């Protein structure tokens, strides 16, 4: 090939590149996307797996106020996650979704929320209550409690640190702007304020099932406390007891099973090599049950027996498949392909919801059964290829 050809080729590409236009990205845009990535990956530890210690759980005392004290923490290597969890709890309320500004659920719920500024997060709490997170004005995050008609019963000032639930619709948690956790249980009209202060910048990740006011365990991510450490994962009890989770074999923890016995997260994150592997690990022993480099972002089913997973590389606009794997051995039990997968959630222990786009740009909400069968189309809205869906899943 001649140099002349190469120069012409380069010139042609340069002319074409002008069509890219001018970028409009701001620092806030970038930070917003970064927050999303960080939440999905959760607590990626600098240095990788080799830097992790052997103990499954180490006590730390990062929080102040309440009853927090290193003396009250369980000894290293003696995890007590399951002490506070209650896997026998069977009560579960189906999650909801938002379509055309209306909240809907499989139990017939349908209402237009009485909130300003749109819905950034949605969480069911009991049979007839919903929590909505959003930015009604001036960029301040607010959590609203709604009834089943969409009427706002109460609003709460909140830190922009996540609105998380237990995956069953029986417990929800967020951070108040005073740095203390708010816990709302199904059937309660007002949230309880847990006395312990959490560090500024904390990100709530999950509430383990089996919560009560007296005994509730949640996970949160905080900025790293050791030099060179990006972030750390803490397990916090309602009485303020704190343990720092360090699980051998995982460089990050994306979720803990409903009974707290198992954790899942990334075992390998190598941006350079384009390699992203995930694993399921026994929290108490640190033993890896299985690992895959084909799927990631795994979420436990409400009964903990299965995980919902998507492509291993997950930071773009959409994914190419969603699949269900056995928690025990990682065997693929069910999968959905042929759509651009935008979001996915467990609905029950046997069914899951997928927000997807088909090859004509139509936005769909699909219900799938882990035992097989064709996807059930729950919602259908015309959209455009590559554009965000008008159907958004809540918890």
């Amino acid at each position: 090939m001649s140099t002349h050809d190469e120069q012409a080729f380069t010139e042609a590409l340069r002319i074409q590149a002008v069509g890219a236009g001018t970028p409009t990205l701001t620092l806030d845009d970038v930070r917003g996307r970064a927050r999303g990535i960080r939440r999905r990956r959760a607590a990626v530890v600098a240095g990788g797996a080799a830097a992790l210690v052997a103990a499954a759980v180490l006590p730390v005392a990062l929080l102040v106020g309440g009853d927090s004290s290193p003396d009250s923490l369980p000894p290293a290597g003696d995890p007590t996650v399951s002490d506070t969890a209650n896997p026998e709890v069977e009560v579960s309320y189906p999650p909801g979704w938002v379509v055309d500004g209306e909240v809907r659920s499989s139990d017939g719920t349908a209402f237009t929320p009485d909130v300003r500024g749109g819905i950034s997060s949605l969480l069911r709490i009991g049979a007839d209550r919903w929590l909505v997170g959003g930015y009604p004005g001036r960029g301040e995050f607010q959590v609203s409690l709604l009834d089943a008609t969409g009427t706002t019963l109460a609003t709460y000032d909140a830190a922009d640190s996540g609105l998380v639930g237990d995956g069953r619709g029986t417990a929800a948690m967020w951070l108040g702007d005073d740095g203390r956790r708010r816990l709302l249980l199904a059937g309660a009209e007002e949230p309880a304020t847990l006395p312990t202060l959490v560090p500024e910048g904390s990100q709530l990740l999950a509430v383990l099932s089996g919560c009560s006011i007296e005994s509730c365990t949640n996970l949160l991510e905080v900025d790293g406390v050791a030099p060179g450490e990006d972030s750390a994962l803490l397990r916090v009890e309602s009485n303020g007891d704190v343990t720092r989770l360090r699980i051998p074999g995982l460089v990050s923890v994306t979720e803990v099973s409903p009974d707290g016995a198992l954790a899942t997260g990334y075992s390998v994150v190598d941006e350079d090599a384009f390699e992203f592997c995930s694993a399921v690990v026994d929290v108490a022993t640190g033993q890896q049950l299985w690992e895959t480099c084909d799927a990631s972002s795994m979420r436990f089913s409400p009964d903990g027996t299965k995980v919902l997973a998507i492509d291993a590389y997950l930071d773009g606009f959409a994914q190419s498949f969603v699949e269900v794997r056995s928690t025990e051995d990682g065997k693929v039990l069910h999968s959905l392909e042929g759509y651009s997968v935008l979001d996915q959630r467990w609905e029950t222990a046997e069914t899951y919801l997928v927000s997807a786009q088909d090859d004509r740009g139509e936005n769909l909400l699909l219900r799938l059964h882990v035992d097989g069968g064709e996807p059930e189309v729950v919602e259908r809205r015309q959209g455009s290829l590559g554009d965000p869906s008008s159907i958004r899943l809540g918890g």
Partner: protein
Amino acid sequence: MRTATEVEHVGTRGTEQERVDAEFTAYLHARPGALLRTAYLLTGDRHQAEDVLQTALAKLYLSWDKVREREATDGYVRRILVNETTSLWRRPFKRRERATDVLPEGGVEPTYDEGQRAAVWAVVSTLPPKARAVVVLRYYEGLTESETADVLGVSVGTVKSQGSRAMALLRDRTPGHLAPGSREEER
């Protein structure tokens, strides 16, 4: 119990974040135009280019200190752009657009003008994502074969072969020569 080192680290966190934000903002003012153009050539779509660039910059932001120390910021972003674009191509609607070795129908442009540029772009658009990345990095970004191989995580041989193949496609698609005036030289 927190150690003195840990306390000190937590205490300086706010200042560190301000420094990162200031440094990153400076980078954000200086580089996105060029990176967006690269992203556009990789994806072939303005919206997707903005999307992959936003993700790449977010990952850079999360790894700012680590990447900055390596003095390889643009290289890091390019790598993420390529990875994001590859990820994009794995999605169903994109897969249906994936090119094959069969070139699209169309006439040969007589001169090196807007039509010729469009012809070049049409060929680039038919390339599979990795080959397209080779072309963009080699002939638009001006990276060496070795640098291109490093960004893509492939061998120099792969870069050579994919670059040659792209050029061969171009020659087939635009008989004669690519350069302006070359047809007159043939006469």
